[in-house]
């Protein structure tokens, strides 16, 4: 058990920041991102014995995090409580604006994207290799490239559109 705890801590220390950023990008809210991070690592812990090194552990964790994010806001209760990401983002804008207007704007633009696109672009922004993103999201690499190109364009458009207002 101690061995497992030790391994878990190592995995947490080397992956938590990226996973938190992914969750933050998805929700735009640090508390919600923190909840998602905890759920992700709870699943990592309980499935650690089943991990068979077929893929990189980071890819495996990303996949868990992506599933967690997608399921999280679909929960009826969570939707009622948090009134979906857009509202969370809107509420957090004021908090952001004083610190960093551009970052706040970026999160707002990400929130305007489709759920899956939001997660994909977050991984792109974090410079994950395309083959890994394809593996995590279950999309073929060819399709993913087209999709990423489209999401990048959309995000850039949105960003420039809001920035010019």
């Amino acid at each position, binding site marked *: 058990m101690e061995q497992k*705890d030790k391994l*878990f*801590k190592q995995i*947490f*220390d080397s992956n*938590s*920041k990226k996973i*938190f*950023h992914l969750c*933050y*990008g998805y929700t735009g809210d*640090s508390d919600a*991102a*923190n909840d998602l*991070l*905890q*759920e992700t*690592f*709870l*699943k990592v*812990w*309980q*499935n650690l014995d*089943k*991990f*068979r090194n*077929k*893929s990189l552990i980071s890819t*495996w964790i990303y*996949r*868990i995090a992506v*599933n*967690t994010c997608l*399921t*999280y806001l679909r*929960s009826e*209760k969570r939707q009622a409580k948090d009134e979906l990401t857009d509202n969370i983002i809107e509420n957090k804008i004021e908090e952001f604006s004083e610190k*960093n207007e*551009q*970052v706040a704007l*970026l999160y707002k633009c990400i929130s305007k994207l489709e759920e899956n696109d939001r997660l994909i672009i977050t991984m*792109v*922004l*974090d*410079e994950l290799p395309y083959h890994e993103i394809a593996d995590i999201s279950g999309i073929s690499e060819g399709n993913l490239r087209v999709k990423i190109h489209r999401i*990048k364009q959309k*995000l*850039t458009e949105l*960003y*420039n559109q809001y*920035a010019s207002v």
Partner: protein
Amino acid sequence: MQAFDQIQELWQKHEVEVKVSADEMLQQVKKEVGGLKLKSALNIIAMFASFLSIAALWIFFHFESWTTHVGISITIIAIGVYTLILYRDHRLIAKSDFTAHPHEYLNNLKTYQLNRYKLYNSLYWFYAIALSLGIIFYFVEILSFFSTIQKIVAVGLTFLWILFCSTILRKAVIKREKERIALLIEKFERLSEQISMPD
């Protein structure tokens, strides 16, 4: 006009701070699963302590009237049976670990929720009636040593206490426990949906 590269640079420059450490996370994971178990165990320990106290009272004090023995017997049986039911339910959530067998744990949690509902409703009334009956028999001998005012106070306070436990306290406990278990089930259901993920 910003290009995507600049947006990416902005994203990467934005430092995020993870609020939990690996140790806290590990603690959290274990606490989440163990919280309900601990509360249930404490409940059983408290009931068992009551059982032992009444048994000690019966053994170490000399009671003359048969009514006292009947009263204590009824009370002790009621507490014993209720404790056994609590223990049976406790085993449901104690025997499986969510982190090891999530689906089994979730099913047990749902059964536990149903059992607790029965425990606080139909079964509770059997328990309250048995306990009241036991106390009535017990009081026959005990109250004979008291003055009339003391008798009224003792009977009145006991009656009010049973009434309080059966109404306000029972409802509050049901509400709190229902919310707690429902939240756990909701959370574990969400987690279980992804347990069978591919490696």
